[in-house]
C-alpha cells in the first residue's frame, strides 16, 4: 500500500503563547505543504455529518523541504558513564527470562559488540535458540542447547586472555526430568576481539544504532574483571555482592534502583551507570520473586528485572520542521496541522491534532469540553486485530482491517497501545504521543478522537460556546483548570484516569460543578503519568476488568508512581461514585434506543425532557450502530456507589447477544453473559445533584454522540442534550 506522510507534535495541549513543534516525515522527494485548520468534524462516513474543518491563517502555512525521518524502536540499556571495559580477563553474567527465543534473530544480552565492524563481544541468544558468545571475528561459541521461553536462566561467558579460553554456559532455575540444568561450552579464541562499541544490555551496536534487541527480562547483570569459576558466578547473583568476590566486580547493575526513571544504577562502586532507551518495562518481578510481596516498593530486591522488547518505543526524536506559536486570538478548540504532498496517484495527507486552551486561569465559555487525551494514548496505534486471539469473538464480526490497521501491520516500529501485546506476547504498559498516532486522526474509525468530533460538530452547529482542555492539563493542574467553568463535558470514552485527574473531577462535582458524561466505560482504569518524561502514560492490566491481556502476578504496581493499577473499582473508587454509572457491557454489531422511565417524570428532571414526549423512544437512530445506546454501555448500581438519589431517567435494555457482560462482575463463569439473557446488560441514562449546587448527567453510552447530528440535528437526543447544557451552564444552584 502507498506510503504515508506522517507527523506528530511535541505537545497535545497548548496555551496561547505556547510553541508547538511539529515533526514531519514526508516520503515523496521535494517539498510538502502545511497549514493550520480548526477541526469541526472528522466523521467522513456516508451517514455521518461529513468532514468539516476551517482553514486558519497562521505562521506555519507554507511549503517545507520533505525528508524521511526514521523510527528506531526497541529498548535497551546503554552504559553512558564512560567507555567501559577494557578488561584482559572477564566474566559477564545475568539472570534472564527470554520471552521470544527463536524469533529468527540474534538477541543480545550484554556486551560491547558492534555488528557494523565485527568488533567487541556479546553474550546473546543465537538464531538457533542457544546461548552464545561472540567476540571480534572469531566463530561464535554456542552451548548448542535450546533455551525455553519464560524460564529463568543464569547465563554467563568467561574469558581468560592467558589461555584464550571462553566458557559459555547457562543454569536453569527450574529443572525438568531428562533436561540438563547446567550446560556449558568451552572454546579457544584465535583472533583478537577488537575494541567494540558502547556497552549495551539487551541489544548490541550496529554502528551508532542498536540492533539484536533482546525480548524478555534481564536481572542482575554483572561484569567482573576476572575469569570466574561457575561456583563464583552463582555467588554473585544476589545483592549486596559477595564480600569476597566484590573486589573483582567491575559493574553490577541493580535495576530495582531508580525504578521510576530511565536511569540504571551500577552498585559496584565504579559508577558505570547507564540509562534505558525507549522505555523497557520496569517494576517487573525478578528471578528471585517468590510472592512474599506483590509491591515492588516494599521488596525492591525482588524486582530487579527489566523487561525489554524489540518493539518498545517512547520518543521518535524527530527533528522539528516548523513551530506554531499559538496566537493569543486563535480561540480554544480542536486544531490540526494539515500536511500534504502530491504523488503520481494524487495526494497524500495527514491531519495532526492538538488542542488549544484559553489563557491559563481564564474561560472564554461557560462550558469546557474535556478531551480525553490519556484515553487517546491508551489506544494509540492499537493493533487489536493481531494482538487479540479473541478479537472476533469479542466483536462478533470477521476482522476487518482499515487502511490504518493495514499500515501499522505492515510497518513495524510505530509503537503499540496498552491494548496490544509486544512481539513476545507480553502486555504493553507504556504509551506515548511522541510518535505518529495514526488512529488519533479525523477520517478514521469512529472511536475515541474521531468519535469525539461528533461533540465538537454538535456544539458548533448549536452555536454553544465551548473551550477545550485535556487530560494532560487536568492531571497537571487538578481542579484549578476546571474551576472557571460552570459545566464540563467529557468525551465519548474517557476510560483512563490518573488519581490526580479523578480527584480533580470529583472535587469539581462536589464543589458545585456540573459534569456531562457523554460516553461509557469511563473512569475505569487507573493510569499514571510520568513525573519527568513528557507525553507518556503507564497502565497495568491488574486483577480484573475487560482486559486486553493479563499483568503477570506481582506486576500490578506501576513503575512510574508505585500505585496499584488496574480498575478504579478495585482501588476503592468505582466510576459510580463520580458519574453514577459504571461499565456494564459491550457489543459492536448494533446499537439500540433508550426508553424513558417513570423517574423521568420527576420534576427534578423536567428541564431535561422539555419538548420530548412522555412515551417518546429516545435515539432509535445514529451513525454509531444505528442507535444512541450502544458499543459500550454503563449501568447504575447503588452497591458500587451510585448516589441513592440518582434518577435513572431512561434506560436501554434490548441488547442482542453480541453484547457481552463485563467480567469484573462475573465472580464465577456461567452461561447467562450476553445481552439477550443477562439483565445486567443494560444502559442507564442518569441525573443526580451533587453538593453545593452541582449536578451530573450520564449518558451511559459510547454511541450517544453518533446520534446528535441525525435529521439535521433535529432529534430528541440533540434536544435532550441541549436541554441539559442549557440548565448546566445556568448558575442557579441545583
Amino acid at each position: 500500500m502507498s506510503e504515508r506522510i506522517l507527523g506528530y507534535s511535541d505537545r497535545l495541549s497548548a496555551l496561547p503563547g505556547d510553541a508547538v513543534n511539529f515533526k514531519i516525515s514526508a516520503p515523496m522527494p521535494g517539498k510538502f505543504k502545511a497549514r493550520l485548520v480548526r477541526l469541526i468534524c472528522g466523521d467522513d462516513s456516508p451517514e455521518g455529518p461529513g468532514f468539516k474543518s476551517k482553514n486558519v491563517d497562521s505562521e506555519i502555512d507554507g511549503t517545507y523541504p520533505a525528508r524521511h525521518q526514521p523510527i528506531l524502536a526497541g529498548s535497551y540499556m546503554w552504559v553512558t558513564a564512560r567507555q567501559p571495559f577494557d578488561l584482559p580477563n572477564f566474566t559477564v553474567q545475568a539472570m534472564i527470562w527470554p520471552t521470544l527465543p527463536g524469533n529468527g534473530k540474534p538477541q543480545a544480552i550484554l556486551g560491547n559488540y558492534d555488528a557494523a565492524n565485527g568488533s567487541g563481544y556479546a553474550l546473546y541468544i543465537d538464531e538457533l535458540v542457544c546461548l552464545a558468545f561472540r567476540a571480534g571475528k572469531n566463530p561464535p561459541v554456542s552451548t548448542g542447547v535450546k533455551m525455553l521461553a519464560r524460564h529463568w536462566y543464569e547465563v554467563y561467558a568467561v574469558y581468560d586472555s592467558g589461555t584464550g579460553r571462553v566458557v559459555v554456559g547457562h543454569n536453569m532455575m527450574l529443572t525438568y526430568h531428562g533436561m540438563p540444568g547446567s550446560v556449558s561450552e568451552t572454546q579457544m579464541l584465535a583472533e583478537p576481539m577488537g575494541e567494540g562499541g558502547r556497552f549495551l544490555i539487551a541489544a548490541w551496536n550496529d554502528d551508532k544504532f542498536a540492533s539484536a534487541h533482546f525480548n524478555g527480562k534481564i536481572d542482575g547483570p554483572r561484569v567482573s574483571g576476572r575469569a570466574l569459576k561457575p561456583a563464583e558466578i552463582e555467588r554473585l547473583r544476589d545483592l549486596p555482592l559477595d564480600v569476597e568476590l566484590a573486589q573483582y566486580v567491575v559493574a553490577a547493575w541493580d535495576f530495582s534502583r531508580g525504578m521510576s526513571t530511565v536511569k540504571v544504577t551500577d552498585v559496584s562502586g565504579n559508577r558505570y551507570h547507564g540509562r534505558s532507551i525507549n522505555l523497557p518495562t520496569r517494576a517487573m518481578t525478578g528471578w528471585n520473586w517468590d510472592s512474599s510481596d506483590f509491591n515492588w516498593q516494599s521488596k525492591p530486591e525482588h524486582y530487579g528485572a527489566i523487561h525489554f522488547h524489540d518493539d518498545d518505543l517512547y520518543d521518535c526524536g524527530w527533528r522539528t520542521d516548523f513551530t506554531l506559536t499559538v496566537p493569543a486570538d486563535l480561540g480554544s478548540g480542536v486544531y490540526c496541522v494539515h500536511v500534504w504532498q502530491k504523488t503520481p496517484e494524487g495526494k497524500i495527507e495527514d491531519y495532526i491534532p492538538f488542542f488549544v486552551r484559553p489563557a491559563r486561569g481564564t474561560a472564554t465559555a461557560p462550558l469546557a469540553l474535556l478531551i480525553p487525551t490519556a484515553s487517546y494514548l491508551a489506544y494509540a496505534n492499537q493493533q487489536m486485530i493481531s494482538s487479540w486471539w479473541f478479537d472476533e469473538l469479542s466483536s462478533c464480526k470477521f476482522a476487518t482491517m482499515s487502511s490504518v490497521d493495514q499500515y501499522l501491520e505492515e510497518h513495524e516500529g510505530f509503537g503499540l497501545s496498552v491494548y496490544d501485546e509486544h512481539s513476545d506476547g507480553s502486555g504493553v504498559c507504556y504509551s506515548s504521543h511522541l510518535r505518529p498516532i495514526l488512529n488519533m486522526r479525523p477520517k478514521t474509525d469512529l472511536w475515541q478522537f474521531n468519535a469525539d468530533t461528533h461533540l465538537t460538530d454538535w456544539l458548533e452547529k448549536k452555536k454553544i460556546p465551548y473551550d477545550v482542555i485535556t487530560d494532560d492539563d487536568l492531571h497537571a493542574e487538578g481542579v484549578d483548570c476546571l474551576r472557571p467553568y460552570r459545566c464540563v463535558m467529557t468525551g465519548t470514552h474517557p476510560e483512563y484516569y490518573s488519581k490526580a485527574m479523578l480527584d480533580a473531577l470529583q472535587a469539581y462535582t462536589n464543589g458545585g460543578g456540573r459534569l456531562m458524561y457523554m460516553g461509557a466505560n469511563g473512569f475505569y482504569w487507573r493510569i499514571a503519568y510520568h513525573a519527568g518524561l513528557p507525553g507518556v502514560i503507564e497502565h497495568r492490566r491488574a486483577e480484573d476488568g475487560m482486559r486486553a491481556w493479563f499483568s503477570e502476578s506481582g506486576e500490578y504496581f506501576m513503575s512510574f508512581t508505585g500505585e496499584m493499577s488496574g480498575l478504579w473499582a478495585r482501588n476503592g473508587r468505582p466510576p459510580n461514585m463520580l458519574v453514577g454509572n459504571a461499565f456494564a457491557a459491550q457489543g459492536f454489531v448494533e446499537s439500540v434506543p433508550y426508553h424513558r422511565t417513570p423517574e423521568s417524570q420527576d420534576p427534578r428532571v423536567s428541564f431535561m425532557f422539555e419538548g420530548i414526549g412522555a412515551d417518546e423512544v429516545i435515539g432509535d437512530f445514529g451513525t454509531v450502530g444505528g442507535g444512541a445506546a450502544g458499543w459500550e454501555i454503563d449501568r447504575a448500581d447503588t452497591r458500587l456507589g451510585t448516589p441513592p438519589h440518582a434518577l435513572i431517567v431512561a434506560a436501554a435494555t434490548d441488547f442482542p447477544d453480541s453484547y457481552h457482560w463485563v467480567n469484573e462482575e462475573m465472580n464465577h463463569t456461567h452461561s447467562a453473559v450476553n445481552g439477550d439473557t443477562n439483565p445486567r446488560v443494560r444502559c442507564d441514562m442518569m441525573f443526580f445533584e451533587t453538593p453545593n449546587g452541582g449536578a451530573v448527567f450520564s449518558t451511559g453510552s459510547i454511541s450517544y454522540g453518533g446520534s446528535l447530528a441525525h435529521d439535521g440535528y433535529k432529534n430528541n437526543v440533540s434536544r435532550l442534550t441541549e436541554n441539559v447544557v442549557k440548565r448546566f451552564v445556568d448558575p442557579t444552584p441545583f
Partner: protein
Amino acid sequence: MIKIDPQSAQSAALATQFKAAPFGPYSADLQKLLQLLRWGFVRGRTIIICTKPYKEWRLGRMAPRRGLPVEVSEREVFTDYGAAAWACFRARWQEVVGQPCPVK
C-alpha cells in the same frame, strides 16, 4: 464439543442463514458455528480488508508476523460489506473445517 459436519443439511442451513443476514440476528446454532469459525488469532486466516473507506472491501490475510505486507486478494472486490462478510465466512469455513462451505 460440537463439530461442523460439512455434509449435514443443518450446516448448509446455517450457512444459508448467515448469507441472508450476515450481521444477524443469528440463531443460537449459527452463533455457535460462528464461534468455532472465529476462535483464535486471525493471523494467517482470511480476513476482510477495507480498501476504500465505507465503499470497497476485499479478502486478505496477514503474513506470519508484523512488518510484512498484508496479502490482499485481487480476485473479488466487494462494494457491500455484507457480501464481503459472506465471502469471508466461506473462506474461513474452508480453513477451519478443511472442506468447502456447502453453500455457494
